[in-house]
């Protein structure tokens, strides 16, 4: 069983990306033997009201049992509470909010209110540190990367909030994990897509220092090749139970 908690559908505004359709994602899942993909509507991350993409997302997810919708919530837009309720009613495993893409303070008042509401709704909140390597972004793509301090502040803002952070590198993970209490750190899950394998062995180091229970399988596809996250795991000599935990068990327990 392999669950990708970090996948997208739809076009990217800053460059041509192949494989953004639902059919293409199905083929990619077949190719990489991924059983479930948590999907977000990519174009609407860049819309003034990103929730306008959620209806399409729900409809598309209904066409493929392997797709699980992760809709976007914008906590500065009136009616966001209903968007969150809709997500819960639709069986979304999580909701996402990438504050810097929405022009919000990453740990400001709106985000804290959203964090509390996610906690009350028992929905994990998913955030990306980045979507692309900062060195290659379009000259007009000036959105900042999510600061580690914001993740620390958010997880402290509500004692029941659960966060899934994607596209974080080793330094980011370490800063947040060891800058949090053990109780806080247990409420954060990290996807592996941006963590380096050998010879630097960042993923192996993190699994040793932080533990496999904090990591989940994510790819960032189709912006990134999903083969990468599988290759990282194949390059580790992980016991079967640890690999299964990263590939699906941790995320299943998170949403159970």
């Amino acid at each position: 069983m392999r669950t990708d908690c970090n996948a997208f559908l739809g076009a990217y505004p800053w460059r041509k990306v192949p494989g953004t359709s639902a059919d293409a994602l199905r083929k990619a899942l077949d190719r990489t033997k991924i059983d479930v993909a948590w999907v977000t509507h990519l174009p609407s991350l860049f819309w003034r009201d990103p929730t306008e993409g959620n209806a399409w997302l729900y409809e598309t997810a209904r066409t493929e049992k392997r797709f699980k919708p992760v809709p976007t919530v914008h906590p500065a837009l009136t009616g966001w509470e209903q968007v969150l309720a809709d997500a819960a009613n639709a069986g979304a495993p999580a909701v996402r909010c990438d504050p810097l893409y929405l022009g919000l303070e990453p740990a400001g008042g709106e985000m804290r209110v959203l964090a509390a509401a996610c906690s009350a709704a028992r929905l994990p909140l998913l955030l990306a540190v980045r979507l692309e390597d900062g060195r290659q972004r379009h000259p007009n793509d000036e959105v900042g990367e999510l600061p580690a301090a914001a993740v620390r502040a958010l997880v402290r803002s509500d004692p029941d909030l659960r966060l899934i952070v994607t596209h974080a590198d080793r330094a980011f993970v370490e800063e947040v994990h060891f800058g949090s209490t053990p109780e806080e750190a247990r409420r954060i899950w990290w996807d592996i897509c941006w963590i380096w394998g050998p010879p630097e062995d960042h993923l192996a180091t993190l699994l040793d220092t932080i533990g496999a229970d904090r990591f989940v399988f994510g790819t960032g596809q189709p912006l990134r090749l999903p083969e990468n996250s599988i290759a990282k795991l194949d390059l580790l000599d992980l016991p079967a139970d640890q690999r299964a935990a990263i590939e699906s068990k941790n995320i299943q327990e998170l949403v159970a």
Partner: protein
Amino acid sequence: MLIDVHAHFYHQRTPRADWRERNASRLRAGEKIGISIHVASILGSFGFTSPTYFPSPRDVTAGNDALLSLQRAHPDRIRGLVCVNPNYTAHARAEIVRCLDAGMIGIKLAASRRADDRLLDPIGVLARERRVPVLQHIWQHRRRDWSGQEASDAVELCTLARRHPDVPFILAHIGGGGDWLHSLHAVGAAGGGDVPNVYVDLSGSGVDGGMLEACLESVGASRLLWGSDITMDTGWAKLRYLESFLGKEELALVRWKNAARIFPPGAFPAD
């Protein structure tokens, strides 16, 4: 056969206390991936006693010596690229001759001097005489200077390559940061800037969807070289993706045949 044209090793006189573990990790991962030969370079002291991209002559020599030792210790798996700092022309030329005579198979230019600078011409001449390729560190679409290096981009490399049309130049790590599309326009016929003696190395941490398709569209499978640089997982991912749609012969070109064509005869076991 699988040749990694862009590998690095560390040695004792670098800031890395874990240099042995990193070297061992590369070889261990190489076994899992199926890498037949790691074509590697060492950039001086990697910042220990002179900057990584501006290595002193003494550090250049020490790094190359360390790599020669590794090549001797692993003759079945490691080949060396002579790293030089072109600002020290006489030393660079002497180092190239010394290390090629000792068994290295190519030249590594990092970011000590802009690629289109005339100061690199003596190195191009020597590469032609010795019939070895030059791997040039590239910042894909450098829009400004970055501290710590005098990086070049593909347009600048192409200027050098046009002055030395008989020398194969390897455009380093297309996935290593920066706008790879800018580079592919510069080197490929599709972008109008075809420079046939420039080859594209697929290494780097970037695994962008669409990047490999753009590489194939730009220069075709006959000018792509597989490599990893300092993230072997991303290298393996790109190889796996190519395996999903390239034909057997095209895949062999990327895996090793193109490398075997541009490196000296006998550089690799199956030659």
